């Protein structure tokens, strides 16, 4: 009854609103019905399972696929370890549930070996989580950085058994995003500090760089990195496409990150600087212990927004011939067997991007909530 009363008050109060409600309802019905009918009767979804491997890893040689599983296991172990150190237990239930649903969704599509590989990788993650919980918190915290460093090196070492030209699909998109973010972050931090610096030369150069990069389209930076990076290394050393592509992203994203961080820096009150100085902290200590933690906390949503943007923008790799997730769609569609299935293929690719972006976004909100405690 309350629903009826609500509808009467909000949807059918007066001639115009009633008319508007009816028209909108009809449009929603028509469009929704058309999509559902198409999805369940006409759409030929078989194209997705048939090319699932291509979407996930591109032209990665099937006999070397164990390398991907090992790398994934290492990555999940790192994530698990980190979760064990920083995240409270109740979020782990949510994470496990989401992972479980995705696993069940993908289950029919996966090869038996992949089902096993995924389980093994998840197991590695769980094990690392338990390990992190069993050692002293302070030690675990201190181990975090070296563990990530070594783990990342190991994962890349394992993957490098296959030349990077043959990495592709979601695997490549994730790798590119990871390295673009990890490398762009320190550069962005330095640029932000540089721009707010009192030394005129440093401030001017940083400002110049930031404004220059922000003033041009990403595609041009990508092209430029693609052409320029080989100029900086010895001639007989061929820089892999992927490295050049990532370099472009790093140069581009750093400028945006720098501006977000600068916003955060300027939001920290002058009193914080003065209190730190008055205690005898050096300028460096003040920045590291007092200013940056507050500045970064304030701009976490913007920073994660930038990470999501990088994740989605890696689809521009298509242009410089790197085989990321989106270019896999083109590869599949150019196969005569799958002619005319653009809708199915692109909807699927959209769905994968959306899953990635949505989970990052969820992570951002959790992080904000977890860190909001000390704020005034």
């Amino acid at each position: 009854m309350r629903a009826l009363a609500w509808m009467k008050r909000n949807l059918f109060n007066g001639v115009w609103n009633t008319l508007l409600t009816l028209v909108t309802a009809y449009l929603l019905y028509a469009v929704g019905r058309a999509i559902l009918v198409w999805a369940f009767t006409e759409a030929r979804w078989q194209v997705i399972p048939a090319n699932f491997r291509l979407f996930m890893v591109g032209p990665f040689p099937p006999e070397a696929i164990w390398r991907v599983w090992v790398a994934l296991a290492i990555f999940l172990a790192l994530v698990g370890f980190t979760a064990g150190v920083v995240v409270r237990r109740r979020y782990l239930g949510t994470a496990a549930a989401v992972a479980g649903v995705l696993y069940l969704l993908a289950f029919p599509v996966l090869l038996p070996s992949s089902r096993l590989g995924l389980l093994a990788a998840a197991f590695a993650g769980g094990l690392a989580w338990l390990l992190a919980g069993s050692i002293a918190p302070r030690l675990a915290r201190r181990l975090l950085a070296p563990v990530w460093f070594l783990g990342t090196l190991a994962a890349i070492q394992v993957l490098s058994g296959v030349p990077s030209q043959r990495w592709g699909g979601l695997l490549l998109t994730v790798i590119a995003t990871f390295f673009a973010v990890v490398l762009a972050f320190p550069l962005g931090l330095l640029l932000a500090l540089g721009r707010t610096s009192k030394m005129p030369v440093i401030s001017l150069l940083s400002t110049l760089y930031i404004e220059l990069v922000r003033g041009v389209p990403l595609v041009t930076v990508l092209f430029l990195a693609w052409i320029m990076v080989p100029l900086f290394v010895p001639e007989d050393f061929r820089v892999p496409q992927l490295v050049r592509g990532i370099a472009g992203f790093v140069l581009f994203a750093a400028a945006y990150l720098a501006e977000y961080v600068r916003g955060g820096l300027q939001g920290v009150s002058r009193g914080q600087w003065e209190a730190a100085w008055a205690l005898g902290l050096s300028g460096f200590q003040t920045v590291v212990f007092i200013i940056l933690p507050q500045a970064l906390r304030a701009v976490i949503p913007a920073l994660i927004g930038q990470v999501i943007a990088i994740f989605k923008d890696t689809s521009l790799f298509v242009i410089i011939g790197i085989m990321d997730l989106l270019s896999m769609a083109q590869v599949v569609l150019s196969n005569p067997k799958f002619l005319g299935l653009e809708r199915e293929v692109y909807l699927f690719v959209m769905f994968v991007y959306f899953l990635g972006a949505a989970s990052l976004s969820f992570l951002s909100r959790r992080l904000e909530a977890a860190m909001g405690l000390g704020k005034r």
Partner: protein
Amino acid sequence: MEPIVKMENVNKWFGSLHVLKDINLEVAPGEVLVIIGPSGSGKSTLIRTINRLEPIQEGRIVVDGVELNEDLRNVEAIRREVGMVFQQFNLFPHMTILDNVTLAPTKVRGLSKEEAERKAMELLERVGIADQAEKYPAQLSGGQQQRAAIVRALAMEPKIMLFDEPTSALDPEMIGEVLDVMRELARSGMTMLVVTHEMGFARDVADRVIVMDEGRIIEEGPPEEIFSNPKEERTKNFLHRILHH
């Protein structure tokens, strides 16, 4: 006895605004000096030059035998020996009270974490907020925050404490608890320079009161003399305004 703070012909400008004019001041070790005067008279600026939060353009400042100059090492050496308490507390909001207090002793003095925490708890106990150690500043009342800020400064074992209107941002019912801590500190022999509008505190605790107006020290002397028998017309006006509002 050799003065622990010595200012000679100090002049300071903010742009074209002349905010400190020919300041000459000596503070003896253990002395409690209260600085009063109308707002905008340069009181805060004066004490902020002592740990060089405000640089000066003319004159000399010597603190504990070290001359304040451009040399960053001298500045940091002096800041280690001079504690400061701010009007707005300026606690670090992303750290617990305990971390606020132990940060400088561990990072600047090189104390071990355990040693610093032991000392911090002792001090927090002394000002009555040991039970708040694990909380964040935002979870404390204004009075508790200011007491924590005093502890943070004391943890560095400074020889001099500067107080920049420490009770001006507090609700009236919390002023007393902060002044009590300052009284106790004064009795313990700490050298203190206090900018305040709390005339009662000045009367009870100060060894000497100086009155500032328009960037100058216009009058100084023991509190009973300043409060009951001021020589300067401007001092009389100021005291009249502040005591009978």
